[in-house]
């Protein structure tokens, strides 16, 4: 294989459609006779349902149907558990999953109570006001700690609010504590927000009674799982259900939460009415009907040697699961595992309790709990550096896993059920590059003293992280050369802006000697590709990309074999390039790939036994475990001491995600991740009151960073190939977002010289007003 395209910053195939308004997004699906749905959602967080009267709504002109839980009969049942708990001995896991429509109780604001189907969305929303709901309002459980000390239970039958309890250990923390020169204990609060894609969710379901076929357009990251699950729920065969994930306007995790009430209700209604039905989430709904990530409280301690080496860490944390926990333990397990970072931690003792609250459901959002763990570790290293009078970058360097220690075994179980093993890595050069790019020594020695003398509050920070990526189980791809010479590739994952139409095409183009623009990629249509898992955990490029590569290679072999038969020459004499197979050294002796594809499907004659018609191949790839990427972010920031507004003066990301398919697309992933990380660190906070009401459920009040808040970033990378796949790739989708919280905390502390005031920033998100509060005590003292 030549590598003309692999590794090159090839411009994207998908751009033209998107730039000219021709890409099909969910709300662009228009079908004859289509009905429109609107959901009546609970306005309170916790209540017993005494009755729902929909009679007036049914009388409104234009309303076709109204359904409540009681209309669903046997169809009403809790959704499936998507990810069962990993096999960790002694774990407690209480399975409680969301329901299609609330029946006896509502458990969070926004939980659907009824659905109206009408001729237009306008009429459907009018009819919501006609429905009378009788609720007995109950006290709401809204914080993790309170949840464990209250007689109010989110799930009455459970007798507590414990969703799960898991302990994982490595070595013996008591040994570390006994030998420690320094032990630090702190409480850390970390809240992650909501993913807020600019396109909200949506579902269109079309039942074709004559063909007994269900077609569902869905803003999902995992169309194959949705197809399988909905077929089972609807009592249909998988071949009767086609799920299409069209162009999707951003996902970032929550669009993989499967069997949302809307996904379950729309197909059922379409079957009952024998009409297509559409539901598009509005932004207000999005704030509490799409899943969140939210908060954890960590009570942790770290044991250190005098030279700053980590001896051990003990962590006990609470995780807010929300009202239901369909995604199992993925988020808190990620926190537990990723806390260890790129460092040698000989003894580790980590216990978490996940609690049910009367708040929206928590499932993974870009980073998926990794941020929470990384915050604890990185803040501890800053605190330890201060106590031990070691430079913050130096204390990190001293603890990095050395390059000869890979594969590095962490002796605990990861979210993919496999032991947490880092496949490969070389961490110190990444740190060195980041320090060099940010000008670390120069800033501390010259710049900072100079600027401080001018009265400016400037600070620097550096933070390290690892990212478990590219997990199994598997993905597949079908590569087919068509008679027009174009190559068609179908894969089962969904795509939400990651550039799959281009990065996969690059892999194919190199293998088959065609141009990237001659490769058409189809993602997210279960009729085009039957098998797969989905786009999550930074796995698309790694897992599906490898399958695409394997399938292309098989097609290449077929093409060369066929051409060698046609030319009666040896395959070694053939060269595959420019969309044709040519005989080396004989000008004009060639056959176009399209013609070859036609020959592979003859009208007469025989296809020899053991061969298949066509130039196509389907291949699958399942990695034995996830590949671990790593990186370092560094920043110089300035804080306005009056307003506590923060300006990022310089931002550097150096990372290692193995071999890179398309550095332009990779840079875009990092940029976007950092932007979300900045939002999480300093702007985005879900503000709930004690009744479980979200007080800032609009984009005017929940602050997504704009072009003015996100700085220019300088990127660099190193390449340590993964041994887990033939191309040596690791994932990168979440890398940008993971360490920004601790980076901001560290930089702000430095800028305001908070250590001298004995103020520690042990929580995220921060904000100007929160900084004002946290420093007020110091000012008053």
């Amino acid at each position, binding site marked *: 294989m030549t590598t003309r395209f692999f590794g090159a910053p090839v411009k994207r195939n998908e751009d033209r459609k998107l730039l000219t308004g021709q890409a099909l997004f969910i709300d662009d699906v228009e079908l004859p006779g289509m009905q429109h749905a609107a959901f009546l959602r609970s306005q309170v967080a916790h209540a017993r349902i005494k009755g729902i009267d929909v009679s007036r709504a049914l009388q409104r002109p234009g309303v076709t149907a109204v359904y409540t839980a009681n209309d669903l009969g046997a169809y009403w049942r809790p959704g499936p558990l998507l990810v069962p708990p990993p096999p960790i001995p002694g774990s407690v896991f209480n399975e409680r999953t969301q329901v299609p429509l609330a029946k006896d109780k509502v458990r969070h604001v926004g939980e659907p109570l009824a659905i109206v189907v009408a001729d237009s969305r306008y009429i459907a929303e009018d009819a919501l006001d006609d429905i009378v709901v009788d609720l007995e309002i109950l006290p709401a459980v809204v914080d993790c700690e309170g949840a464990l000390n209250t007689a109010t239970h989110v799930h009455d039958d459970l007798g507590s609010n414990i969703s799960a309890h898991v302990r994982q250990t490595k070595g013996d923390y008591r040994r570390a504590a006994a030998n420690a020169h320094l032990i630090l204990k702190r409480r850390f609060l970390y809240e992650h927000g909501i993913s807020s894609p600019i396109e909200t969710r949506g579902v269109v379901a079309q039942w074709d009674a004559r063909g007994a076929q269900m077609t569902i357009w869905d803003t999902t990251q995992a169309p194959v799982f949705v197809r399988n699950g909905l077929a089972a729920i609807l009592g249909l065969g998988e071949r009767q259900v086609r799920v299409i994930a069209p*162009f999707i306007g951003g996902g970032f995790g929550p669009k993989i939460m499967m069997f949302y009430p809307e996904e379950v209700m729309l197909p059922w209604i379409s079957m009952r009415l024998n009409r297509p039905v559409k539901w598009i989430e509005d932004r207000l709904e999005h704030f509490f009907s799409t899943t969140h990530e939210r908060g954890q409280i960590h009570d942790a301690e770290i044991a250190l040697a005098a030279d700053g080496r980590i001896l051990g860490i003990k962590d006990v944390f609470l995780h807010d699961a929300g009202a239901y926990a369909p995604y199992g333990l993925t988020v808190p397990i990620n926190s537990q595992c990723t806390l260890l970072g790129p460092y040698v931690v000989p003894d580790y003792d980590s216990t978490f309790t996940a609690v049910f609250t009367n708040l929206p459901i928590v499932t993974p959002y870009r980073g998926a709990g990794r941020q929470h763990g990384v915050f604890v570790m990185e803040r501890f290293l800053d605190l330890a550096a201060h106590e031990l009078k070691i430079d913050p970058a130096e204390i990190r360097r001293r603890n990095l896993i050395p390059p000869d220690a890979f594969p590095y075994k962490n002796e605990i179980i990861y979210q993919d059920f496999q032991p947490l093993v880092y496949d490969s890595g070389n961490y110190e050069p990444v740190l060195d590059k980041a320090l060099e790019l940010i000008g670390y020594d120069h800033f501390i020695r010259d710049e900072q003293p100079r600027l401080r003398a001018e009265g400016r509050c400037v600070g620097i920070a550096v933070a390290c992280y690892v990212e478990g990526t590219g997990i199994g189980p598997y993905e597949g791809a079908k590569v087919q050369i068509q008679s027009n010479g174009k190559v068609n590739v179908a894969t089962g994952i969904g795509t939400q802006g990651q550039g799959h139409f281009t990065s996969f095409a690059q892999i194919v183009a190199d293998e088959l000697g065609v141009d990237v623009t001659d490769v058409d990629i189809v993602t997210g249509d279960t009729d085009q590709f039957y098998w797969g898992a989905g786009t999550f955990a930074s796995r698309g490029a790694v897992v599906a990309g490898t399958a695409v590569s394997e399938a292309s290679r098989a097609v290449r072999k077929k093409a060369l074999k066929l051409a060698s038969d046609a030319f009666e020459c040896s395959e070694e004499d053939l060269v595959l390039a420019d969309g044709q197979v040519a005989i080396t050294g004989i000008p004009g002796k060639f056959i176009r790939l399209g013609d070859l594809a036609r020959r592979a499907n003859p009208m007469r004659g025989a296809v020899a036994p053991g061969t298949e018609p066509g130039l196509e191949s389907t291949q699958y790839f399942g990695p034995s475990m996830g590949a671990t990427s790593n990186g370092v972010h560094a920043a110089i920031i300035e804080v306005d001491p009056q307003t506590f507004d923060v300006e990022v003066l310089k931002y550097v990301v150096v990372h290692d995600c193995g071999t890179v398919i398309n550095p332009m697309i990779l840079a*875009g992933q990092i*940029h976007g991740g950092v932007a979300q990380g900045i939002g999480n660190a300093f702007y985005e906070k879900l503000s709930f009151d004690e009744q479980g009401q979200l007080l800032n459920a609009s984009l005017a009040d929940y602050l997504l960073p704009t*072009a003015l808040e996100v700085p*220019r970033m300088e990127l660099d990378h190193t390449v340590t190939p993964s041994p887990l796949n033939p191309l040596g790739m690791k994932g990168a989708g979440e890398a940008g977002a993971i360490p920004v919280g601790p980076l901001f905390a560290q930089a702000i502390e430095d800028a305001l010289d908070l250590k001298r005031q004995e103020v520690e920033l042990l929580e995220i998100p921060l904000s100007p007003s929160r900084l004002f509060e946290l420093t007020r005590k110091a000012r008053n003292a």
Partner: protein
Amino acid sequence: MQPERHDIELSVNGTTCRRTVESRILLSDFLRHDLGLAGTHVGCEHGACGACTILFDGAPIRSCLMLAVQANGHELSTVEGLAGNDGELHPIQQAMHDHHGLQCGYCTPGILMTMTAYLKQNPQPSEHEVREALSGNLCRCTGYQNVVDAMLAAAQTLRAAP
């Protein structure tokens, strides 16, 4: 009660359209679902995200904050009208492609329309000015950097154009 309906006539991308609409129909819904111009995207329906930005008599507006009836007698431009009839991308579209200024592409039409108007008004913006002009359009994928670079490049191309 029958909803009040109005006859309206407006120009969209140079084509005259006549329709009868309910008074309450949002301009964004009218463009997308009545005229089939689905390139204008809806992100928040409260004027915060900018995805639905179109040009209204040449000025960028949020089509989710207007009613279709208010467009009666006006000239509108949407993303569908940006590229030439021969399919040649507008310099702003081309620059977004060249600089990888879009990922999921959902916010892109709004950004294109906002910046088409802005670069006419300020053909030689600084990076900070571009960022300010962009700050009313939320993008959750790109971190804006490549969008900013695309706009600076587009400004240059447009200045050089005859």
